[in-house]
């Protein structure tokens, strides 16, 4: 009797084990039965209702200026709040809270005409006072160290002209101002923040934010989810969706799993390893989107041995970038010549010096820079001493995989590169804060404007100019471009600047990554923009049944 029970039990356990060993991660059939009976329904246009679910990796902070508001907060804040401008569908700044704007002859004053039909989610009227408060009291308050305040270094103050007109007073012209005002610099309500420490007001920042956007907060549970509901008093086109849910899911594998199981609707895929599985799945689509990002390698320009431009050029010749794009990035990227990405169609050019994969040329350039293999160990030496490069990187996305390939390519031309992989936070402290590095690899994302002064102007050596590159000619061009608001003239300047960037390589430009935007097929109305920009148009999204 007892042994019979045991047999059944062991059979059960055995089948359980077999069940698991039988399913092969990635190789198994990923097809699932779709719920609809009629497989191909005709499009009947947008309709109200439904909800989308978006993953975020950590608890958000509902205040775009808060120093602890990172990417997971940005994707919510740009839906709850509105900025003066927003990225247009052509990526040029488009109206949002501001209907119109103009700059004075000398470029030192920008006047923004605001909408007069905007209400905060609590019913209060939005006015010029809110704009002035946001900038004067928060962004420009040096003690607060607000996010993105570095965009406004040239801003002296914001003046209220009347209820619906504000003036931005600048120290020197900033042509990119309307673009900066569309990038994580949303307006917060004066009537709630006045007299409060904007970082300590957790009843707003962590519980019940009050914005002006097309969705307002419905509920928030720490570690789980944020649910937004349609704002029926929204000043623009009211949203179709009833709700937007952001699920807090730290693990990237879970994002993929939940997309495939239909629990998530849309996000930008970071780890491209899963891309094929998603492409083969039913009811899910992947689209490639240009972004304003560029990947780079930097050689510390404060160190004498890296100051020769030939060394930087040689590094670029030594790396087969197309191969890395094809393998690690699964094709989601294009070779970069400068920092200005093809997403900025108005300004982008590839008519500059290009660096083909050419190890022989790399060796030649290195030899010209005085690097020779004097002891016959296959590695280059300088002045009789070993020439090694300390290559520090942080673990994030595909940086590690890419860096390992770079290390091999550089070894092949005789450069002894020691790869030092660090935890992200520790890498920032070493490379960015202390500038204690020789070589590093990373990427920048910037507002939709070609002004890259922050990253390569000599005035920003203590800021985001991490390679500490200094070149007065490039500075002049960057200054001219930053101050010129006439688009045609600006184009000329940036064509010139790009030629110089490609020639001088303040950064060793690698590629412009494309975003692999993954989403369920029944989600429609998402404009052809990168995920982050498309969120500005979430009121146009709808679910097709």
């Amino acid at each position, binding site marked *: 009797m007892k*042994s019979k029970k*045991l*047999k059944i039990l*062991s059979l059960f*356990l*055995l089948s359980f*084990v077999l*069940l*698991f060993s039988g*399913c092969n*991660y990635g190789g198994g*059939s990923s097809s*699932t039965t779709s719920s609809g009976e009629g497989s191909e329904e005709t499009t009947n246009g947008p309709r109200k209702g439904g909800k989308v679910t978006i993953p975020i990796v*950590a*608890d958000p*902070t509902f205040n775009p200026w808060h*120093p*602890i508001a990172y990417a997971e907060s940005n994707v919510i804040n740009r839906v709850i709040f509105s900025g003066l401008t927003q990225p247009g569908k052509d990526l040029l700044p488009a109206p949002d809270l501001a209907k119109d704007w103009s700059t004075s002859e000398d470029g030192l004053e920008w006047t923004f005409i605001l909408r007069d039909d905007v209400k905060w989610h609590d019913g209060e009227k939005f006015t010029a006072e809110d704009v002035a408060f946001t900038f004067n009291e928060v962004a420009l308050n*040096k*003690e*607060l*160290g*607000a*996010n*993105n305040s*570095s965009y406004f270094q040239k801003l002296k103050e914001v003046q209220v002209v009347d209820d619906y007109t504000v003036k931005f007073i600048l120290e020197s012209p900033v042509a990119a101002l309307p673009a900066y005002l569309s990038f994580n610099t949303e307006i917060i309500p004066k009537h709630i923040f006045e007299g409060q420490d904007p*970082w*300590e007001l*957790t009843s707003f*920042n*962590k519980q019940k934010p009050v914005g002006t956007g097309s969705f307002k907060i419905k509920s928030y*549970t*720490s*570690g*789980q989810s944020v649910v937004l509901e349609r704002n029926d008093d929204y000043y623009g086109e009211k949203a179709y969706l009833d709700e937007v849910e952001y*699920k*807090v899911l*730290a*693990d990237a*594998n*879970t994002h993929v*799993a*939940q997309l*495939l*199981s239909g*629990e998530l609707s849309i996000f930008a895929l970071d780890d491209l390893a899963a891309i094929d599985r998603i492409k083969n799945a039913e009811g899910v689509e992947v689209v490639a989107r240009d972004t304003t990002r560029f990947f780079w390698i930097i050689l510390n320009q404060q160190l004498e041995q890296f100051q020769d431009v030939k060394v930087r050029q040689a590094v670029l010749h030594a790396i087969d970038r197309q191969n890395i794009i094809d393998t690690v990035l699964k094709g989601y990227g294009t070779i970069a010549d400068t920092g200005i990405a093809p997403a900025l169609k108005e300004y982008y050019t590839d008519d500059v010096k290009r660096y083909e994969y050419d190890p022989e040329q790399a060796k030649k350039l290195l030899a010209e820079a005085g690097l020779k293999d004097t002891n016959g160990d296959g590695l280059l030496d300088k002045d009789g001493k070993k020439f090694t490069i300390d290559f520090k990187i942080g673990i994030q996305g595909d940086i590690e995989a890419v860096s390992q390939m770079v290390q091999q390519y550089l070894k092949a031309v005789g450069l002894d590169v020691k790869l030092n992989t*660090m*935890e*992200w*936070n*520790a890498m*920032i*402290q*070493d490379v*960015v*804060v202390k500038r204690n590095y020789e070589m590093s690899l*990373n990427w920048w994302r910037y507002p939709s404007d070609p002004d890259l002064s922050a990253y390569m102007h000599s005035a920003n050596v*203590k*800021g*985001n100019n991490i390679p500490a590159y200094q070149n007065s000619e490039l500075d002049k061009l960057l200054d001219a471009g930053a101050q010129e608001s006439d688009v045609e003239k600006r184009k000329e300047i940036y064509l010139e600047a790009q030629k110089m960037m490609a020639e001088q390589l303040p950064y060793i430009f690698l590629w412009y990554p494309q975003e692999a935007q993954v989403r369920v097929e029944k989600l429609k109305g998402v404009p052809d923009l990168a995920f982050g920009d498309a969120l500005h148009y979430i009121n146009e999204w709808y679910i097709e049944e």
Partner: protein
Amino acid sequence: MLRFMINRAGQSAILLLIVTLITFFLVNLAPGGPSSTMRMEATEEERQAIVEKLGLDQPVHIRYVEWLKNGLHGDFGTSFTSSEPVIQRIMERLPYTIELTIFTIVISVILGIFFGVISAVKRGKVGDHVINFVSVIGLSVPAFWLGLMLILLFSITFKWLPSSGVGPRGEDFELWGWISHLIMPVLILTTTVLPHIVRFTRSSMLEVTSQNYIRTARAKGAKESVVLYVHALRNALIPIITIIGMLIPRLLSGAVITEAIFGWTGIGTLIIEAARGRDYPLVMGITVMITLVVVFCNLIVDFLYSRVDPRVKNV
């Protein structure tokens, strides 16, 4: 008994002090800093402003003394990553971890003792081998892998169970929603806890059943089930209680991997957040909580010893 309690309290206080001292210096001296000061885009000026606002411009030892003073008054500060009080953040998450722990322990203890006894009784027979084999698998298969496999099977292929989250709570609470979210995480945790209990029960039972009084019991004609469950198991329980006493704090301090995979918002996910963001006050708060749990569980185990085995008094 009173002297025993005072002794234990004193020991615990010293332990707590040492643990917090080590942790405080470790986290503060580890490379990197609070993530708000370690944003790649932040300028030197912005970083400096935030460092001052967080009070990190003071030397570490002064900050420790300050932290200790406030801690003794029950104030564990505000979390760097959310600006909310540390205690509030822990209390928000703790119930979820307790929930997982209770289900896991109850299921594991019942099944573990049951299979352990069977394994001991059927020593060397098929049943014993099967149970041993499955136990070894449970111990050696990594939780993250098994977790992903379960998600692949039950969430993606069959679409039976939700792949993550804790399910609707509060007003929207619904029984199946709750249970369906619990199944996979509890299953994973059980596979890591259960084998320990099974194996300890087995060896403990084997030791006890070979003793003379068991032979006596059998000789006097007691039923086999009485011999096993009344005479043997009671005495075999002591080591089992010890292992359970060790497993509970481990689960309560958050099954980090399991919670992360299933988006279970307990202490485990909070630990990841705190460590990743170099949230010093939160790391310290969690450390104190876990230390207290360990101390408390040990105390309970000692107390239970004396109840199960009257010979063990006033250890």
